């Protein structure tokens, strides 16, 4: 029999992972991959990468802190977060994540402190600095320049890799969602994270940095690599589903085929990768705001598509579940609020910390 089936009665299941989850995965992906941008300068000691390294460090710390708030908010019972620590569950990736995440954040903050430490000492010596005693204490005495930076860079990058592993695996193990159940997904999170963090650094370089052209060129070059990896991985996923090599990819494509919204999303995602790639290739200097904005958009939209659009695909029923973007804290307010929090963290960090290494000397301060 060749049936034509119309579903007349069924129920919808609301998305259990809300836009907060999109925010968390975006921010933590940005944070952990921004750590990679700090390595040439602070692990390998390449002076020419110092500006990129400092932009990367600021991005990593600010996004990491904001990300944790978004993660807590995605719990429907955020006040019970401590259950993660009283009921460790060795077979759940999310349980591992609850332990790996604080390790990453502590390592990251210590790493940032080690990088900023010599400048904190110099800030403590500036006349009229109210926080001088605090800066002096944080400078930790008369230690050599670069003290602990390399070991902490190693620990932080290992912790960052553990976050990439757990966030990827956490979603990949969900066999019930063919769009998620593929080894291409953890890689895609990593590559789109690299795209996002490079985008954030490009924007910060222009907005709060000095718009350094070498840093912009270097970041656009890094963006080319990240976008290239992202497009290659996406093409391999699509190809494996198209050719029937990967059953989940094939099922995911089947559940999306013919759906106009999904086709629009696919075209949009393709353009969000190709356009910044072309711009970064032909105009690596003077294009940072454009490539940065599109890169951030691309990384964020990938997560939105995977989580929100992915949860709109019923597991047993026909068609697509409707999703109405709520305007309150479970939707728009949550998204805007998280970005607002991130901006606030950036403002606090750049106000009180020597993030870019530019300290006004006593002479310069006195001549003002």
């Amino acid at each position, binding site marked *: *029999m*060749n*049936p*034509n*089936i*119309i*579903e*007349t*009665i*069924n*129920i*919808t*299941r*609301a998305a*259990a*992972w809300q836009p907060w989850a999109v925010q968390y995965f975006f921010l933590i992906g940005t944070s952990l991959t921004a750590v990679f941008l700090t390595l040439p300068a602070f692990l390998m000691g390449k002076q020419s990468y110092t500006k990129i390294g400092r932009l990367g460090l600021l991005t990593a710390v600010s996004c990491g802190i904001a990300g944790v708030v978004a993660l807590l908010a*995605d*719990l*429907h*019972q955020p006040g*019970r*977060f401590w*259950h*993660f620590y*009283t*009921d460790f*569950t*060795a*077979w*759940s*990736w*999310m*349980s591992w*994540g*609850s332990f790996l995440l604080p390790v990453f954040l502590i390592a990251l903050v210590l790493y940032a402190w080690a990088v900023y430490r010599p400048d904190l000492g110099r800030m403590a010596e500036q006349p009229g600095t109210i926080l001088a005693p605090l800066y002096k204490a944080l400078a930790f005495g008369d230690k050599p320049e670069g003290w602990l930076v390399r070991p902490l860079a190693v620990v932080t990058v290992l912790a960052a890799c553990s976050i990439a592993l757990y966030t990827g695996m*956490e979603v990949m*193990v*969900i*066999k*019930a*969602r063919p769009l*998620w159940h593929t080894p291409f997904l953890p890689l895609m999170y990593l590559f789109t994270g690299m795209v996002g963090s490079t985008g954030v650094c490009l924007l910060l370089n222009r907005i709060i940095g000095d718009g350094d052209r070498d840093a912009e060129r270097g970041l656009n070059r890094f963006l080319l690599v990240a976008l290239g990896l992202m497009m290659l991985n996406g093409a391999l996923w699509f190809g494996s589903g198209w050719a029937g090599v990967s059953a989940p990819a094939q099922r995911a494509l089947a*559940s999306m085929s013919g759906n106009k919204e999904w086709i629009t999303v696919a075209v949009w995602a393709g353009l969000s990768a190709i356009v910044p790639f072309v711009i970064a290739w032909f105009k690596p200097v003077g294009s940072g705001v454009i490539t940065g904005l599109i890169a951030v958009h691309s990384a964020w939209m990938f997560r939105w598509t995977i989580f929100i659009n992915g*949860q709109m695909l*019923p*597991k*047993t*029923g*026909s*068609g*697509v*579940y*409707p999703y109405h973007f709520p305007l309150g804290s479970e939707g728009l307010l949550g998204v805007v609020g998280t970005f607002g929090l991130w901006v606030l963290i950036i403002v606090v960090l750049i106000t009180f910390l020597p993030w870019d290494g530019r300290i006004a000397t006593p002479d310069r301060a006195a001549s003002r």
Partner: protein
Amino acid sequence: MEKSRRNFLKNVGKVTAGAVTVMTVTPVSAEPKRRGGDPKHRWAMVIDLRKCIGCQACTVSCSMENVPPIGQFRTIVSQYEVKNVDKPGQPVDYFMLPRLCNHCDNPPCIPVCPVQATYQQEDGVVLIDNEVCVGCGYCVQACPYDARFINEETKTADKCTFCYHRVRVGLLPACVESCVGGARIFGDVRDPNSEVSKLLDTNDVKVLRPEMNTKPHNYYIGMDEHFEGKVQGESPIWDIRNAKGEEIEES
């Protein structure tokens, strides 16, 4: 005084040695363990689709018994209008498909739970301790049957419990009790004389999404292959269109 101090030190030694022994002998478990319930039973449901008339009495009685928030359901009878494309003159038919938690023997919802709030009893019933649940929604994602949801009032994971509060005092689940056509049959598959055991012995039964290897314990009699998995059909409920194919907006 001297004696009691000696005893204290002696006991401290014993407790410490005991703790070390327990710590070294008891390895960290690598998979979830069943807890609670009576291992003499294995509860299951047989759903005879030939008898289901889609009246939704089960849906209503479940909601009366378990009081999920309005608009959220632990069970539902999905209904489908079916036409045979090869025989255009033939009248349309209807297919009724009661859906609920399958209380799988290999439940994918349990190993993902980060705080062990959801667990399986020795009698196979999958439950949620909603005082432990953090509402992370991970189990909702992992269930291949869309049987779980986040309860809008309790803010924790929710689903069918086979009305365990009734079963443990010898009553039937509310949906079974209220089924007009007697399509839902509940019982113990470990009892060879139970009605479910006899039905399983004498009928060709199918389960939903067998390819997921979840070993569901809801068995369907009269199941058609087109409805076992994700139903490839049109869904006009949320997307109402006019004769020209334009979406009809809510006025």
